[in-house]
């Protein structure tokens, strides 16, 4: 075991840190800055920032240089995740495109697709959505019913997608559609790439219980999609999707760790500052236990990330450890949300603002964390995966 990074990686870290310090507007780390902006304003700011960052060479960290990436090591990617969160860089506006689509295009894409899609992602010129879930197909993705009919020179797409991140900002969407309704469930599915500005595509915001609309719905009504706008072979979309989703597998959770750890520090600070029964809440032994427990789970998440990173660097087969990572971070984050609410107690139930709907970032996080054990494979689905694929328990 040796947790020191090599000289090259440390060099990478120090260059990145220097660039971030020089380029991140100071006001970004001011508490409340981001929540003071309206959603559209914030989105535009984040989008521009990412383009600038890419121009300076700080994008596609682990992508091969032939695609314009930096060709960095997994360790550098982890350093990048850590440093950007630490520097209060806002989360990417293009997570689905960057994490899932780009590497999939590298594997399955035509030359044309590689040439257009990847650079646009690198410089954040096109925001991609993912169109997988449907009202009748959540955990059971293969139950999807959005149809694409072969009309000779184009596909005619009808159906509805739901839980679409960035639906209202999306330019394009990679979508699973049923191209052969007579085939068995997992066959007859294809992965289409659809221009969200095309006729017949309608995106609607989907309001969550936080009052925000992180997700949306996308409706397809007689949308004409060029035959070439498909990723991978016709009717092989399920296989493409499985490979696509596997790109999450090797990704470390260092970013989540760094972010959640900062939240824990904020909760600890709140506990010190907030009086309860005439004493600081931080002196409440029950809250102390929960603070300690949260620290345990987050530090273990960090170690798990290092373990994943090591496995990737050593070229070992990762298997289904992504399910373990997801369980660990999503459940730990949900517990952290509860802890915040316990510390804030009744006053944490108050909201602010003219419309009485203003949420503190930790309030928002506590509510949002309730969705994290559902999307991207619910905790129940992840436990099935761990039980069957890792432990080998019978189906």
């Amino acid at each position, binding site marked *: 075991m040796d947790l020191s990074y090599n000289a090259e990686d440390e060099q990478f870290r120090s260059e990145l840190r220097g660039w971030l310090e020089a380029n991140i507007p100071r006001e970004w780390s001011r508490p409340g800055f981001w929540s003071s902006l309206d959603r559209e304003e914030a989105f535009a700011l984040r989008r521009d920032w990412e383009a600038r960052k890419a121009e300076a060479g700080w994008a596609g960290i682990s992508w091969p240089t032939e695609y314009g990436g930096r060709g960095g090591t997994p360790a550098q990617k982890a350093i990048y995740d850590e440093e950007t969160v630490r520097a209060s860089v806002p989360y990417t506006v293009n997570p689905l495109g960057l994490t899932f689509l780009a590497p999939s295009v590298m594997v399955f894409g035509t030359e044309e697709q590689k040439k257009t899609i990847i650079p646009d992602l690198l410089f954040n010129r096109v925001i991609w959505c993912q169109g997988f*879930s449907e009202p*009748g197909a*959540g*955990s*059971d993705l293969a*139950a999807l019913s959005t149809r694409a009919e072969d009309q000779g020179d184009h596909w005619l797409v009808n159906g509805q997608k*739901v*839980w679409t991140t960035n639906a209202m900002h999306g330019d394009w969407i990679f979508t699973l559609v049923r191209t052969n309704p007579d085939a068995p469930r997992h066959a007859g599915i294809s992965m289409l790439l659809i221009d969200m500005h095309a006729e017949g595509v309608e995106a609607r915001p*989907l*309001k*969550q*219980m936080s*009052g925000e609309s992180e997700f949306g719905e996308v409706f397809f009504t007689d949308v004409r999609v060029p035959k070439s706008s498909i990723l991978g072979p016709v009717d092989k979309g399920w296989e493409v999707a499985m490979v696509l989703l596997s790109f999450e597998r090797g990704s470390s959770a260092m970013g989540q760790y760094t972010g959640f750890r900062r939240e824990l520090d904020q909760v600890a600070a709140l506990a010190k500052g*907030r*009086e*309860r*029964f*005439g004493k600081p809440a931080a002196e409440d032994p*029950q809250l102390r236990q929960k603070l300690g427990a949260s620290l345990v789970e987050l530090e273990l998440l960090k170690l798990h990330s290092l373990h994943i990173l090591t496995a990737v660097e050593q070229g070992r087969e990762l298997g289904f450890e992504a399910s373990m990572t997801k369980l660990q971070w999503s459940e730990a984050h949900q517990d952290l949300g509860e802890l915040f*609410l*316990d510390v804030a*107690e*009744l*006053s944490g*139930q*108050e*909201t*602010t*603002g003219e*419309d*009485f*709907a*203003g*949420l503190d970032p930790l*309030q928002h996080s506590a*509510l949002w964390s*309730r*969705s994290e*054990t*559902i*999307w991207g494979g*619910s*905790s*129940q689905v992840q*436990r099935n995966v761990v039980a069957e694929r890792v432990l080998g328990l019978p189906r």
Partner: protein
Amino acid sequence: MYFALTDEQRDLGRTVRDYLADRFGPEQVRAVYEDAAGDGHPAELWKACAEQGWLAVTVPEQYDGLGLGLLDLAVIARAWGASTIPGPWLPTVLGGEAIRIAGSPEQQAEWLPKVAAGEVVLSIATRREGGDWTAAGAACTESGGTLSGTAAQVEYAAVADAFVTATADGRLWLVEAAAPGVTVVRTGGLDRTTRLATVTFADSPATLLGDDLDSLYGAAMVLTANDLVGIARSALTRTVAYDKEREQFGRPVGSFQAIKHALADLHVAVSMAEHGALYAAYALDSGQPDAVQAVHVAKSKASDVARDATAAMIQYLGGIGYTWEHDAHFAFKRAKREEYAYGDGAWHKEKLAQLLLA
């Protein structure tokens, strides 16, 4: 010996639920919910409360009340929780209880008929932010018959006609909203089925009721516990119903054993919480020797189970339960707020440890 509601109490519960189903269903709740800037005090519902006698339950018959007990109020509170009903019913009833318990005959004669008739809205303003709301840190200090201090998270303060507040010696006071020096500043709430405000008293003239803060809190804890078990039972029932129908992988979600077992455990826990919430009301009503213990048992279990049942509802409804359009979050957020109101599970367990180790 019987541990069950009487037929009359069952009828009362049915009447309340029937009324709500007919006249104040999910649409009406949602209307209040969406109108965050509104007062959260639907006039028609209030009128019904008065007409049906739901504000008069524990008011003595001589003051135009029904002269019933906390157990009868508990029946209403459960129905209220089950449908996440907004409005100042609970704080008004508690205000009335304060006057009934601690007030003089004159004070009772002045206020209780108005409480029973729905002519006044009352609220409880005893909690000082960060203070020991149960006693020493109560909201106000007294000086020559006037009170000063600030009470936080006061329910429906903006529509209240008078506040019950307390001083550190455990005495209860009544302050009219229109009295000099009373300031009400609304805040929002995650749980929009209620309305909150901070109430400041500055040398405000006050009427002394008497010195039984503990009894008031006993009633508040029991009724909140009953609201919570109403929420919990309703959340469980809705989850079961949804998971019976919702199919994934070609079978109902509710046929997956991991979900079944979680729901079975919740059913046991909710049933136990129901027992506890009812018994605590009975124990206070009839002055059982273990009444204090019963109150702590009730609020502890109800707080924990309502939190767990509503969280399970969000999880086992899948994405739909997390949307604004679905009502699940009404229950989730109401349970969360009430978990902390009048002491959370940990607070009550510590009290029980004190009793056990005494």
